[in-house]
């Protein structure tokens, strides 16, 4: 998941912790009220500028170097300047990008990618198959200190190269200028999705030390200027191989405070605004503002990992009781502005493997009490619930505490900044950790495997320390299965087991909501954070000046 460093608006665990967002939350309402009562909202006139302005980033990208893309703003920036062999659309579908097509051998071990010819980097150099090798070696090279080589690990020899014990990646073969072949260590049907992630984007051979400040790719937008903590500016790449962008330039503004971003939106200074959950109801109540809202189901799960190795939590009945004891629908409606759907498993409704017939745990306190009694805890248990300090997490945690108290589970709340909490959860020091997961690639595997497979306990993402050999073997088998139908069935089966075992409190799959200026055309809220590349987006100006 990409939300790591300082999770972005669209994602996870935290906004920057010392920011006054909590304290100024009340003022947000004032701003909203002002917006709704005044002519300001939606009343700004169509701008004459030829620059698209995004306001969704709330902290500076880490770098513009694909090898360092571990957070949302960086991933977004990389997806504008660079291309991968494939990419994700706004609706999170995999489509070819620098490759025209690819084939997989019958044994599922060899992938042959046929590359587009005549594509040039922004510096004029020609893109060829050797750039692919260079890019992947660079992403894995210990000297790059990226630390995010895992999407390439399925390639034979990639791990050894990353560890510095091999001089080249054994399974990466440049056949000719327009063909590259990958040999995997074992069949991995979703391998093509790995090659659409920001870290596997293609960079030219000439990457100077300050490449992260002056990136050169083949993507639809050329890098122009980066004012740290202020904005990143891009210009249209007229030679873009897949049809150049419709507008001249694109500016990604970095606005840490949500109320400020709202003010910028109301002034017509930005074209797109990520809407905070608590502001959603007021925007939806008013016809004028509601018309500006666009949404998309997001590949983001909000959940609370239950450590399955801690005391009473080892008992599946206790974990189920916790799920029965919480009115998730109410939390979704009251605290999240109805932004999402209640989860019944870890696979989001938009992905293959989702089972629409499986109902979420109902709110049933009697059942919860009965399960606790059955498990031998008629007097309840004591647990610690950890949460971050940002967004709605503290309030969700408090609400869970109140619900659990009703069935006799005494919850001690622990609030920490994102970094401390992440460390504690990965070390297994949390009983229950309220967090979220934002998919890197659109596949059920990206939820089942990192969150719940025993190979990923701790740092890999499984903070439940869940270990079920049956679940493990089904997920491992799914990863190796080429047949789509069979793999999907295996996903569903694994999800069903996890749902029953309840290694987490299943909360909700998030819904992304952006406010979009009436003059902006062609914008689609992306389901995956790299899905919006702004190529088809334009400003419908009243007088045609272009």
């Amino acid at each position, binding site marked *: 998941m990409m939300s790591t460093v*300082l999770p972005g608006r669209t994602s*996870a665990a935290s906004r920057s912790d010392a920011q006054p967002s909590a304290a*100024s939350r009340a003022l947000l309402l004032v701003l909203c009220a002002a917006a709704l009562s005044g002519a300001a909202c939606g009343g700004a006139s169509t701008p004459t500028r030829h620059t698209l302005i995004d306001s969704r980033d709330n902290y500076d990208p880490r*770098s513009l170097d694909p090898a360092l893309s571990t957070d949302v703003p960086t991933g977004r920036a990389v997806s504008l300047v660079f291309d991968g062999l494939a990419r994700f659309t706004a609706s999170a579908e995999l489509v070819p990008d620098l490759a025209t097509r690819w084939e997989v051998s019958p044994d599922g071990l060899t992938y042959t990618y046929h590359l587009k010819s005549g594509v040039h980097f922004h510096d004029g150099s020609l893109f060829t198959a050797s750039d692919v090798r260079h890019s992947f070696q660079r992403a894995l090279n210990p000297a790059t200190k990226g630390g995010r080589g895992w999407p390439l690990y399925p390639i034979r020899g990639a791990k050894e190269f990353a560890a510095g014990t091999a001089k080249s990646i054994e399974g990466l073969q440049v056949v000719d200028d327009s063909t590259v072949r990958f040999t995997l260590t074992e069949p991995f049907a979703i391998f093509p999705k790995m090659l659409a992630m920001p870290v596997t984007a293609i960079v030219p051979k000439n990457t100077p030390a300050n490449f992260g400040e002056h990136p050169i790719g083949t993507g639809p937008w050329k890098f122009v200027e980066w004012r740290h903590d202020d904005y990143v500016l891009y210009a249209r790449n007229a030679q873009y191989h897949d049809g150049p962008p419709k507008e001249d330039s694109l500016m990604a503004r970095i606005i840490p405070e949500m109320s400020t971003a709202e003010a910028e939106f109301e*002034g017509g200074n930005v074209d797109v605004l990520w809407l905070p959950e608590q502001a959603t109801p007021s925007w939806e109540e008013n016809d004028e503002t509601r018309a500006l809202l666009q949404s998309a189901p997001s590949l983001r799960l909000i959940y609370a990992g239950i450590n399955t190795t801690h005391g009473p939590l080892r008992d599946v009945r206790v974990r189920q009781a916790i799920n029965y004891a919480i009115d998730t629908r109410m939390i979704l409606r009251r605290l999240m502005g109805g932004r999402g759907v209640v989860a019944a498993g870890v696979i989001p409704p938009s992905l293959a493997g989702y089972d629409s017939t499986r109902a979420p745990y109902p709110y049933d306190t009697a059942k919860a009490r009965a399960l606790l009694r059955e498990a031998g805890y008629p007097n309840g248990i004591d647990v610690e619930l950890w949460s971050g300090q940002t967004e709605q997490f503290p309030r969700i945690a408090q609400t869970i505490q109140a619900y659990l108290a009703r069935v006799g589970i005494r919850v001690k709340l622990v609030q920490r900044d994102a*970094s401390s909490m992440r460390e504690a959860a990965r070390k297994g020091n949390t009983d229950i950790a309220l967090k979220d997961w934002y998919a890197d690639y659109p596949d059920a595997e990206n939820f089942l495997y990192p969150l719940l497979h025993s190979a990923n306990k701790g740092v*890999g993402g499984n903070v439940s320390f869940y270990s079920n050999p049956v679940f493990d073997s089904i997920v491992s088998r799914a990863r190796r299965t080429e047949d789509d139908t069979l793999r999907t069935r295996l996903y569903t089966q694994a999800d069903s087991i996890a749902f029953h075992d309840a290694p987490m409190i299943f909360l909700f799959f998030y819904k992304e909501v952006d406010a979009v200026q009436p003059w902006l055309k062609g914008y689609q809220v992306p389901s995956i954070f790299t899905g919006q590349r702004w190529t088809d987006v334009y400003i419908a100006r009243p007088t045609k000046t272009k």
Partner: protein
Amino acid sequence: MTRFLARRLLLAIPTLVGVLIVTFLLLYVAPGDPVQEMVGERADSATIARLRKELHLDEPVSMQFVHYAGGILHGDLGTSYITRRPIIQDVLERFPKTLQLAGTAMLIASISGILIGVLSARHPDGLFDRLSLAGAYLGISFPVYWVGLLFILFFSVKWHLLPPSGYGGLRHLILPALALGTRSIAFQARVTRSAMLDVLGSDYVRTARAKGLRERVVVMRHALRNALIPVITVLGLDFGNYLTGSILTETIFSWPGIGRYVVNAISRRDLPAITGSVLFLSVVFVVVNLLTDLAYAKADKRVSLS
């Protein structure tokens, strides 16, 4: 004068070493793992172990400190774990912007604060004095993020006079500088008022009036100069507050200054970026204190620097 400067600068060295040690130790005991912040949410333990070794994070704390302090002695603040950029480059890019904001805020605050203070002291308990007292209480009580958001609400959203946020020309500077300066205006006004009242009641002012000097000359030339000493003290102390208080202002107004940089570095556990910028800011504090002392001597001839 030169001896004074030399002595003060020498005394600053142990202060800075102390800052360095305390910052380093605080970060060492704080929870959170820099390497996990580097690699992201999904990682493998081999990569984490490798990075930890490369960054010397697997060594005892004393050795880590030696590595770090060694770099500082060579004038190298290090490279950010997260961005891979040299810390000094990041700091030098952002600090002037904070200085610009703080300087403007301070200018606004001292001019209007002193003016209000002087006017209030002219007619104690008069209408203006009462109004400014009420205003000062409000100004001191309102937190900067509240004032900042109110400014954005009225000046930008309602009246479309000024841009709500961002870095740019004078237009972008006004709102954040006003927001940052508000608290200080109020404070300065109160300090100036009481200092002026003291001075205006003193014998030499009575003498000056008895000589038949015009009231403006008495107040501005004779009284204010002596009343300035406590005001300068407050200004000097306030400057530190400006630099740290600017974190909130910078966040509200998306001002790309050093405050936001430090906050981001802290939440990402970017150790070299945190220690580097804290050390840099400590140097600034030392310099500001020195300047404050020099200003005393300038304002009051009785203060001797030797």
